[in-house]
């Protein structure tokens, strides 16, 4: 069965990952020695308050070594993170395969509904583990990293999370969190599933009603321009729900693991906005051309 081979592949990858991490640590211990030397030299130069040619040559040599070490460490860390991403994508494929298999299995109840709390925890985890984009020096953040929008011809893949504008039973339109099932190039329409599977049907929507959600977090320390700025209007997922609402950015995150602080439009408050609420980097998406809602 495909599922079994996926399992063994995952096990393989986990072992490889373990190796990589061990290598990373070796690299780090080696470079640490050099870093300590650089620190000592800095201190000596600062106390003596002059730069002698001896110090200059020594420091230059140390910098060169440190540069090489940092590059090597970066490479190994990137390999390890790529490995993790590979494992996760395999797990995701396995989940989708299991879901499809479950559809055709009559013995199980159709569409096992998840308890709300479980769904929320899953969403929170998915937001937290969104990979962080760390570009090499000179790299620019790609589309779908933080606030960078998707390119015009981007097509979301099955399993991607998107914000979808659907019409409710009472005629109201709402942006919901949905997962892409398939895309038809012939009709230019997506088939999406509401993430909250409780008795919701599958929607078929045109591209204009779909906003792909970010696939990477932006690092505020290296790419602050890839974050939404203060006072920018976005569609953000309301905490503990699966719907998107219009909001203004209050504070962007300061560190990679921090959340945005946003003010949701809310007519029940005097000034029209809710107090600041925390929303993970995964959820705010650019209003862009979808401002009509």
């Amino acid at each position, binding site marked *: 069965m495909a599922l079994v081979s996926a399992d063994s592949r995952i096990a393989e990858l986990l*072992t490889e990952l373990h190796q990589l991490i061990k290598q*990373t640590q070796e690299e780090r211990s080696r470079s640490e020695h050099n*870093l300590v030397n650089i*620190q000592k030299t800095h201190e000596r130069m600062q106390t003596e*308050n002059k730069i*002698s040619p001896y110090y200059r040559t020594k420091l230059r040599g140390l910098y060169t070594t440190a*540069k090489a070490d940092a590059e090597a460490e970066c490479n190994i*860390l990137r390999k390890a993170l790529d490995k*993790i991403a590979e494992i996760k994508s395999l797990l995701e494929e396995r989940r989708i395969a299991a879901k499809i298999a479950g559809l055709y299995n009559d013995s199980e109840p159709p569409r096992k509904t998840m308890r709300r709390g479980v769904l929320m925890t899953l969403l929170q985890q998915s937001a937290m583990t969104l990979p962080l984009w760390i570009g090499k020096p000179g790299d620019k953040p790609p589309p779908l990293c933080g606030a960078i929008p998707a390119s015009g011809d981007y097509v979301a893949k099955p399993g991607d999370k998107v914000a979808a504008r659907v019409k409710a039973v009472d005629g109201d339109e709402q942006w919901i969190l949905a997962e892409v099932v398939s895309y038809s190039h012939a009709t230019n329409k997506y088939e999406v599933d509401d993430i909250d599977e409780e008795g919701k049907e599958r929607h078929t929507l045109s591209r204009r009603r779909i906003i792909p959600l970010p696939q990477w977090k932006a690092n505020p320390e290296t790419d602050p321009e890839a974050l939404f700025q203060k006072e920018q209007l976005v569609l953000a997922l309301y905490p503990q729900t699966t719907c998107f609402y219009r909001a203004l950015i209050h504070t962007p995150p300061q560190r990679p*693991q921090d959340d945005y602080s946003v003010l949701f439009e809310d007519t029940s408050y005097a000034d029209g906005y809710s107090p600041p609420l925390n929303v993970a980097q995964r959820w705010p998406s650019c209003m862009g051309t979808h401002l009509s809602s």
Partner: protein
Amino acid sequence: MSELKDCPLQFHDFKAVDHLKVHPHYKAVLAHSEDDGISIEELDTLQLELETLLSSASQRLQQDKKGDRRFLKLGGDHELGAPPKYEKLKKQKLEGKVGHGPGPGPRGRGFLLDFLGPTTCHGPPRMIRFWASVEPYCADITSEKVCTLEKLLKPPEDEAEHYKLPPLRKHYSQRWAQQDLLEEQKDGAWAAAVTDKKKGLMGPLSQLHTKDLDALLKKSEAQHEQPEDGCPFGALMQRLLQALVKENITSPMEDSPIPDMSGKESGADGASTSPHNQNKPFSVPHTKSLESRIKEELIAQGLLESEDRPAEDSEDDILALSAHNRVEKHDMLRLGKGR
């Protein structure tokens, strides 16, 4: 040995992340033996910790690279390519200016960058600031600028309405005189109403009507104007004598040929008569020649400007400047269109 303060190095803190404290999961994974491996549940937290490590390592790499570059500069290895290239650029620009050809001339930003290459972006800030300040003078003439120039150079079309003068209204002395008379009339009427019995005794003006007012005013004006009509002297003479009388240079004597404008001086009340005899006939001969002689004398003294002035353009700085500007604008427009 250079001073520390001259050193462009920034002594960054190159400490590595202390993974033992900050990344417990990373530490735990390391502690696992070969057999244990990594479990799927640990993947998420491991991912986060690895991301932090990578982020700090890449920042360190960035700092190392910067430090390296600064070191090269410190050692004098870095060749500032801009100065020799700047000489070449200056020469070309001078040639261009003289030739006024379609080739050189106002070159664009692209030209500058071609010469300087990527050095500008990495050069010392002073150089960057200098080129940024020079840039507007060498920038391309865009089509918007061509349109602006054309608009500026277009001769003004509808100036006729600017030249129209509104009609003159009543002179203020007449207006005030009329207002004063009306005031008096009002006061008189009020007083009459109060007393009710003494008609016509409260003021000579209480019974005046409007047309009487106008007639009164005209009469006073006529009295003012009369001396002017009667005086045979030219305008220049009149002005001169007026000034002299004002300064008390000429003593006011009855038989002196002082013209009647002294009547004007004594006040606005038209009915008053000056101490000088206004009606004495003037018998100064050759008034016209006297006028012209005085004029010549004044011009010779430099007190009066002669009326035949030279061409205005050569004396008028502002007109000269605006003519120069116009020529410059035409040149710019021609060059802009020529591109």
